[in-house]
């Protein structure tokens, strides 16, 4: 099987999501840099790959894909012979739970955590601006409510979708990794099962490798 090309940046959360999948399945790939600092993601060449002008995009021969969670599923399905099964598509009940917690990441976790990361990390570091504390504070309150649900879940289940590591857990990595380099990392201290889960998933070799390419490593 020939390799794939991933267009993006190793520091970008959504690129990292796909990088993790590629590493987990041991795929051959090339990371082609697209610089968001210069606005390259809005260039005609990149818009042809991702009409929303975002990173990442994936090229596999003639196939071009965008949306990191969809790309992730494609990678995991394409390389399922590798033996790494993070989707559990052979089991209806298990695959349903993977989809549930992947959606929870998209619709509950991500909207709460990403403004905290954006304000406290991206705004000062990339934009040279001042974090909006009101946004951080209100997002933190929402995030804690989400973490309460995760704490209850992870008290009953080793991983989010069940007793198996899956794409649902993996998908939470990039933004959480960035929260951990902000002062708001301490929020996890109040949620011991979430903290233990985080320590477990970040001990995976794929996570260590992708983490090394991100800011604050």
């Amino acid at each position: 099987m020939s390799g794939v090309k991933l267009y993006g940046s190793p520091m970008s959360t959504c690129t990292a999501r796909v990088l993790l999948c590629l590493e987990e399945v041991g795929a051959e790939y090339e990371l082609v840099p697209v610089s968001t600092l210069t606005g390259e993601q809005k260039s005609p060449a990149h818009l042809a790959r991702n009409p929303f002008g975002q990173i990442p995009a994936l090229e596999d021969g003639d196939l071009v894909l965008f949306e990191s969670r969809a790309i992730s599923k494609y990678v995991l399905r394409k390389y399922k012979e590798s033996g790494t099964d993070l989707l559990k598509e052979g089991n209806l009940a298990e695959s349903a739970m993977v989809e549930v917690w992947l959606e929870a990441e998209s619709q509950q976790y991500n909207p709460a955590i990403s403004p905290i990361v954006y304000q406290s990390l991206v705004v000062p570091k990339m934009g040279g601006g001042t974090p909006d504390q009101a946004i951080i504070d209100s997002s933190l309150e929402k995030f804690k409510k989400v973490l309460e649900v995760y704490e209850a879940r992870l008290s009953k289940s080793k991983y989010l979708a069940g007793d198996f590591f899956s794409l649902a857990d993996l998908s939470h990595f990039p933004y959480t990794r960035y929260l951990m380099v902000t002062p708001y990392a301490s929020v996890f201290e109040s949620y011991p099962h979430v903290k233990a889960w985080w320590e477990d998933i970040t001990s995976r070799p794929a996570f260590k490798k992708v983490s090394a390419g991100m800011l604050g490593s």
Partner: protein
Amino acid sequence: MASVTVYGTPLSPAVSRVLACLFEKDVDFKLAPVDMAKGQHKSPDFLKLQPFGQVPAFQDELTTVFESRAICKYICNNYPEKGNQTLMGGRDGDLLAQTSVDQWLEAEGQSFNPPSSALVFQLAFAPMFGFKQDPAAIEQNEAKLANVLDVYDRRLGESKFLAGDDFTLADLAHLPNGHILVSKNEDLFMSRKNVGRWWEEISARPAWKKVVEMQNAPQG
């Protein structure tokens, strides 16, 4: 005999997304109301079904599922022989078709949903529940949504439906918010030629019409 139960009201966009899928798939179901005014969605019994205390929740003989897009995928996977056979993309095992559906369903969830949900709240739910509308939020979200619809318009100039030649979950996912927005500001969709064409086609589907009938019926 329905072994499928959906918890929630058809007036909730997320619930109506699931109902649309059930009608497309010809899967019988029972709708169990959740009295949110009385806080039933935060009751311990309901939190066992949906730990975030939101609707919908879905239960059948195999499992309990929440998050409307996950429920829709589960319905397609668990009832593969029933009703619409192309909601998840082409034939069984067609990875490219399935991936295209995933991609455009993600676009809906990540790009269309946030501004459209904010607008639905401002234009429909805020007045309904006596909240004051926020003109700045309306303007900001209309602008964001306009950018998304511009991308859709180009895509739908090349492709009959978002994921390809067939109506799929990727299109279906847009029906709930689209329906409310078009009723409040038809121009958003209809001023764009390809989006307008697509909207008229998907909103005319019998399955969606059944959902709208449920929404318009007196809510018990």
